[in-house]
Structure formats: C-alpha cells, structure tokens
C-alpha cells in the first residue's frame, strides 16, 4: 500500500438525490432468472428500536448456481444470462424496504469448503459515518451449519444473521437489522 484510502463520510439524509432516485433496484432477479424466488423485507432499527426512515440498503449476491457476475470469480461456471446480482433500496417510514430476488447458490469459502447461501449487505444512513456490512442467511438452510463465516460468530449471536420465513406467505422472508442494543446485528469488518 502506498496511498491512504479516502475516508468514509456519512451519506447523510439526502442520499435519495444521488443514490436512489434514478437508481433504486428492487428487483434483483427478473422473471427469467433461475432459482427459488425470494421476497425479502429488510427493516433497519436504531438502538431504541425506532425505525430508520433514512437508510439505504445495498445487496450483492451470486446467482442460483453460486456464480458472481464478476471477472474475479474464476469458477468454471456460466453466470445466469442477464444476472447482475445488485439491489439497492431506501427505507420507508417504517424502516423497511423490499427486494425481489432468488436464493443464491453456494460460493467457495476460505479454503476448499463452500459457504451457505447468503446475501451481502451494506447499510448507509445519517449517523453512520461508514457503511455497515452484514450478511443475510436463510434460517433452516442445512448448509448454515458448515458455513465458515457463521462459524466466526459467537453462537448466541448467529440468529441475527438469519432471515426468517413468513409461514403465511411462502417465499417471503424478513430480516431485521438492529444497529445497536440487546439484539444488535452482527456486523463485519471486511
């Protein structure tokens, strides 16, 4: 390293102007995309449980075969035609936003093993001087027990990384992000 990277500064309350007004992406997976459909509702809450109506959530994920649309993914697989894998939404008054996507396939982990299906998440907001990174896993996925990233998390905090299925509406999942407090979500230093 020769240069100090530019420091982060908060996105502030007016990011809609540049980061979402013309570039919201709710639909990560279109009707032609392969894979198990997922409607994911994310909600962002502060340390007192109050919803954030001024956050933006970005998602980055692999396709149903576990392939990222990126030249540094050198797995010998072909990415699903039309797949990008990026989503971005601002939260509403109730702190929530919804994405339409698919459950991604498994991607390689640190060594020879595979990671469980997961979405990579970045959160930006007023009051966050730097974005927070977390991951959405799917509760009940048998691969979770082998996931090398979940294994880094103290067992009693792993639930905070799990999206929960809605029993009444198949394919609908919810993921609450607690920035602070007793139920504080696990955030990663990437």
């Amino acid at each position, binding site marked *: *390293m*020769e*240069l*100090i*990277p*530019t*420091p*982060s*500064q*908060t*996105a*502030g*309350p*007016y*990011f809609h*102007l*540049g*980061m979402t007004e013309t*570039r919201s992406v709710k639909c990560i997976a279109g009707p032609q995309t392969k894979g198990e459909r997922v409607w994911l509702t994310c909600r962002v809450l*502060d*340390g007192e449980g*109050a919803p*954030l109506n001024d956050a933006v959530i970005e998602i*980055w994920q*692999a396709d149903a075969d576990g392939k990222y649309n*990126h030249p*540094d*993914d*050198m797995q010998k697989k072909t990415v699903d035609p039309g797949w990008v*894998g*990026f989503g971005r939404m601002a939260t509403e008054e109730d702190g929530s936003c919804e994405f339409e996507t698919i459950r991604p396939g498994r*991607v*390689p*982990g*640190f*060594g020879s093993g595979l*990671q469980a299906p*997961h979405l*990579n998440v970045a959160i*930006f907001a*007023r*009051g*966050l*001087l*730097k*974005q927070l990174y977390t991951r959405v896993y799917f509760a009940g996925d048998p691969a979770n027990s082998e996931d*090398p*990233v979940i*294994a*880094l998390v*103290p067992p009693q905090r792993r639930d905070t990384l799990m999206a929960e299925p809605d029993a009444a509406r198949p394919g609908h999942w919810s993921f609450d992000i607690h*920035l*602070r407090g007793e139920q*504080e*979500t*696990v*955030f*990663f*230093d*990437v």
Partner: protein
Amino acid sequence: MSRPTNEGSITQYHRTPAGSQPPSLCEPYQATVRRSPTRPLIVLPHTLSEITGPLYGREEIGETDNDLTRQHAGEPLGERIIVTGRVLDDNGRPVPNALLEVWQANATGRYRHKNDQHPAPLDPNFTGAGRTLTDENGSYRFLTIKPGAYPWLNHYNAWRPAHIHFSIFGRAFLTRLVTQMYFPGDPLFAFDPIFKSIPDEKARERLISKFDLETTQPQWALGFRFDIVLRGRDATPFEA
C-alpha cells in the same frame, strides 16, 4: 472463534490504516449515539463475496449526467465550478469504469429534497445530482456550481462546511465508498464533527479538494481537483 488460517486462493485486499477511517461512535455527531454498533465488528477474511461487486459500463450514463448546470431549461445560480480528479487504488493504480454518483445542495445551501426545510431558496434550474464513470486512466469530471454551507440541528449554531457527496463503486463490494468532498480553507472545518470524526490528519486532508488553476477555464469556471483512493490489493498474475 478462531480465525481461519487457510484463506484459499483469494488475494486479500489491504485493510485501512488505523485512524484513517471514522469510528462508528463519535459523540459530537449526535446521530451516531443511537445508530452505532457497540460490539466489535467481526473481522472477515475476504472470500469471493467480498472481492466481487457490481461493475458498470458506458451505457449507464446520460449526456448531461456529469453536467449539473445543464439539466434544466436555464442555468443554475451560483459559482460555476469544475470538479475533476482520478480514482486510484491504494497502490496508485487507476480504477477505470468506476461509477461515481454525486449529490449536493444548491448555491444557497438548500437540497432539493422533501426533508430539507432550511429556509433558503430552491433553484428551479438545479437538481444537484449527477453521475459519471471514470475513464481508462481513472479520471472523471463534473461541471456544477459551488454548494453553499447550511445549518443543521446537531448542536447550537451548527453549520456544515460546503461539500459535495460522492458515492463510488470500485471493483469490489468491499471497496464501496461513500464520502464527502470539501473545499480548501473552509472556516467551518474546525466546528464540524463529521469532518473531524477522522482521527488521522493526513487521511482527513484527503477529503479536501485542491484549487487548480490548470483545471480552471478562463472566463468560465473555477477548477478543483479531488482524487479518490480506494482500497487495493497486491497484483495478481491475472490482472493486466
């Protein structure tokens, strides 16, 4: 929780030097008090999930997207400025095709946003949002007007130094950067908890653009240079 030792074949990105990024809790900036995590972040060795990210191409950008003075019927009021620079990685190599999004207040310090109730006039000829891509040398350029300083409610008589918000997509999801560009010599730096949240002075100075007479166009617009440095990694044989 032991840290895995085998990090596979992934070339790891560099971590940022201590003090060069803001902490999550910064009490003088009040909004951090209810919104910053209290538990330590879990250090993640990089996998494909972190080192990949959305990439962008030329087709994404419209003709006036990088000229914030030509997005309406008339010209916006204010001091016309050119903001230009390069996006580099921390090895000093250019980052081509990086998507830059900018947003800012108008010359009076007012954002065209429903939540901005600062009693300063909106400008019908100014939206305050733009986007562009870096070229093969990592260079970008915007034409805009200089934003005004504006008051906020953080503390008594609080004013933000004039700034332009930048959002940058580099090569990886982990190089994602949202930051603010400031103008040289602003007297409000000393009172701004957001600017001052960065402990390391040299890193903080990265946020201040430089007036540049060579960029300045005679009879037209003042020029400011703002280079942006993203995290990099050691070269791999696969990279050109």
